[in-house]
């Protein structure tokens, strides 16, 4: 969820990884989890069928709510935005359909279309709330849900007023009237399948999928690679709203009655839980969760129907605790028992050696830049110009302000004073994404890889940045990513989950990602930290090759021998101030520099 959790090998929600298509079958362990899940599912479905007086009706209702759930699945499950007002958007759609169908004599299909659009429009209106993150977003959407309730209860201008709309006519297409449960079931199912397909085509693959996963796990990383997080959030939220509206329109036609009962905060909660029960990484899972939600109304039988939320809550608790990937079984549960599913249908491309794509180096300079946190001054009026195309190291003892300075240049922190110029432009007020689009790439002290994506997908995030605005096929992007991986020596690990790599290898993946974005200025934050002697040499080579493409490289480092071997120029900081800037050997020999490190002059 947040960057701090990115490193933990994930069994948390949303952590499904694509399995490597290995030829040799792994030893067959009994798939306990998979069997349990399947058993749970089967049991649940059978119980529902047994207990429901009208199974078809339950299915129909499930299918309708599933459409809304799938929309929420995109927003909450895939993109990780905690939205708790989806039921309100469904209600908006229901009212729209009802109002149109009751007052207009034209085709009701238009009403259905309008209901979807109404849901999307309502989402668009609410979308500024997405600027809030995490818990504030959750509370804000709860407020929206309650607000909708309040407005409907008091607003006389809502069609139907307090009592709601009654007698809403069912859908009629080309003279065929959708009467009864069965036609609506088929219609809802058809639309559900269509929705899932469309969502998958657009958001389930390619660069959109990667962007959404990055948005979910590490929003700032997405910005660091040029993605506009806010635009993406708005887009998925509106799409979720469109689907919610559609579900509302179907509901209104099916039941003929619309009121705010049954579309309140509790239902929004239930939808969110449904997404999680199904497994938030898969849209189909959300549909399944909706079935569980609807079925909970009947599965306990008539006497206990009042305890359906206890059941739902209990299922959720068990799911979060024991089946973080969701209750719906997946093929990966049964690896070794089913024939290997070749997930990628592409022929293995021959990774072309990375053509040394020459780039124009970006000029970088800072003028009297400062950063203070209250009384503590981390960077103190530093003025510095980095020679374009140089390999410069930023060094200094602990607390000198090196990483802070890097943060200021990259846009990860705002300056307290001074200016940052990239390529001659004043970028002081510009955000990360905008600086990234100028050709800036950066790595961090801790590893920032998206855990739900494979190695190559993580690298592709860099490729996507370089390919932004151009039409480059997925195949071509993939081959570029693989070339970058080969460049850093990880050719065979493209489809592995990042959790399976060692620390040093993950650092290399980050380098491959940075390389793929064809940066003109690269900022590396302690790239050698955590690497052992064997790995450091290879890493230095990678940095040199990157530098050979012509970009400017600025790296913060503690490992001075590493710096000595690698850097042409060195910038030394001490206590936030610039101490020296020049040729590596020259600076190293300076008494003040040595004193800053070890306290007194070397004889």
């Amino acid at each position: 969820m947040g960057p701090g959790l990115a490193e933990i090998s994930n069994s948390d929600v949303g952590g499904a990884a694509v399995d490597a298509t290995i030829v040799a079958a792994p030893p067959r362990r009994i798939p306990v989890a998979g069997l349990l899940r399947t058993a749970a599912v089967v049991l649940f479905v059978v119980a529902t069928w047994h207990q429901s007086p009208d199974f078809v009706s339950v299915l129909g209702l499930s299918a309708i709510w599933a459409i809304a759930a799938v929309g929420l699945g995109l927003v909450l499950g895939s993109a990780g935005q905690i939205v708790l007002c989806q039921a309100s958007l469904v209600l908006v759609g229901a009212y729209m359909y009802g109002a149109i169908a009751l007052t207009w004599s034209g085709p009701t299909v238009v009403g259905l279309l309008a209901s979807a659009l109404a849901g999307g429009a309502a989402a668009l209106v609410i979308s500024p709330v997405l600027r809030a993150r995490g818990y504030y977003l959750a509370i804000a959407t709860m407020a929206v849900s309650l607000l909708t309730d309040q407005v409907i209860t008091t607003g006389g201008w809502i069609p139907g007023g307090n009592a709601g709309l009654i007698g809403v006519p069912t859908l009629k297409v080309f003279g065929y009237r959708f009467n009864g449960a069965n036609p609506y079931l088929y219609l809802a199912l058809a639309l559900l399948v269509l929705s899932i397909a469309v969502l998958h085509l657009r958001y389930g693959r390619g660069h959109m999928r990667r962007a959404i996963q990055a948005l979910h796990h590490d929003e700032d990383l997405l910005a660091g690679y040029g993605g506009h997080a806010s635009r993406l959030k708005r887009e998925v939220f509106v799409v979720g709203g469109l689907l919610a509206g559609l579900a509302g329109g179907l509901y209104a036609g099916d039941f003929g009655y619309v009121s705010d009962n049954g579309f309140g905060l509790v239902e929004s909660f239930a939808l969110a839980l449904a997404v999680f029960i199904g497994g938030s990484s898969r849209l189909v899972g959300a549909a399944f969760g909706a079935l569980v939600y609807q079925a909970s109304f009947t599965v306990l039988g008539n006497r206990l129907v009042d305890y359906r939320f206890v059941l739902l809550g209990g299922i959720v608790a068990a799911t979060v605790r024991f089946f973080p990937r969701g209750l719906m079984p997946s093929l990966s549960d049964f690896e070794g028992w089913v024939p290997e599913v070749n997930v990628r249908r592409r022929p293995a491309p021959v990774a072309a050696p990375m053509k040394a794509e020459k780039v124009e180096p970006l000029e970088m300079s800072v003028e009297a830049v400062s950063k203070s946190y209250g009384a503590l001054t981390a960077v103190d009026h530093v003025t510095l110009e980095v020679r374009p195309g140089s390999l410069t190291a930023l060094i200094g003892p602990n607390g000198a302000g090196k990483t802070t300075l890097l943060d200021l240049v990259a846009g990860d922190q705002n300056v307290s004073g001074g200016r940052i110029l990239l390529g001659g432009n004043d970028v002081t007020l510009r955000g990360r994404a905008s600086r990234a689009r100028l050709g800036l790439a950066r790595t961090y002290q801790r590893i920032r890889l998206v855990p739900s994506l494979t190695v190559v997908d993580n690298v592709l995030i860099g490729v996507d940045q370089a390919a932004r605005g151009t039409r480059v096929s997925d195949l071509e992007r993939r081959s570029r990513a693989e070339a970058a991986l080969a460049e850093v020596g990880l050719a065979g690990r493209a489809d592995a989950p990042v959790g399976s790599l060692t620390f040093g290898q993950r650092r290399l993946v980050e380098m491959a990602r940075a390389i793929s974005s064809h940066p003109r200025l690269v900022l590396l934050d302690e790239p050698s930290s955590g690497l052992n002697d064997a790995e450091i040499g290879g890493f230095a080579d990678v940095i040199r090759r990157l530098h050979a493409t012509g970009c400017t490289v600025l790296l913060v480092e503690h490992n001075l021998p590493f710096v000595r071997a690698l850097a042409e120029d060195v910038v030394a900081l001490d206590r936030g101030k610039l101490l020296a800037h020049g040729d590596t050997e020259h600076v190293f020999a300076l008494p003040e520099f040595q004193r800053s490190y070890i306290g007194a002059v070397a004889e």
Partner: protein
Amino acid sequence: MNGLQVEGLVAGYGDLTVLRGVSFTAGRGELLVLAGPNGAGKTTLLSTVIGRLTPSAGSILLDGQELVGLPIHRRTRLGVGLVPEGRGLFPGLTVWENLRVAARAARLSRSEARAGIERAVNAFPVVGERLKQKVRTLSGGEQQMVAIGRALLTDPGVLLLDEPSMGLAPIVWSRVLETCRRLADEGRVVVVVEQRVLEALETADRCAVLQQGRVVRDVAAEQGAIAIPELAGTYFSGEAAS
């Protein structure tokens, strides 16, 4: 043997091994400087000694008693005091509250806690003057005194200081070093982990150099002072000083 004895310590975080077999000893009354560049494992070492981190191999003996396996508060009671990097104080709490919370965390009784706080105040009069002030309003040097005072609450036999010079003006740093000397002379083991070694060497008894997770050099302080060019070399060229 009296004092601190670390043998073959191996520790890390997840699949990242930081300490690859650290061994050194420091007797009572000794001020040991543990030098080394960043990434060498200095903080990891101290975390392991205090008990925050569990080593996968090796032993830590305090006056012959094995510390590995004991929880933090037991080690504190047995006499290990840590002054963490960045001081590890609670900025929104007053000086007195900081001391009090630490005392209770170490499961000191009321009278022990009171005695401990008195000890801290006696060691650093400035702490006594600032008892009612919030820690975040104190200067770096004053905060350092509070942090060391806090470590003294349990009358520790071993005092560990992690980069105490950070953020301190040189003159304050020398005063901290004098205090460390005094504490060592009282019969404690004082281990100072530092990058800025040279001033420390003037008051220290011995110097050990940590590099890439191992102690590569362990000499008497005067010898350390003589070996400065080599020491600098360790930093700047990475060759293990022979």
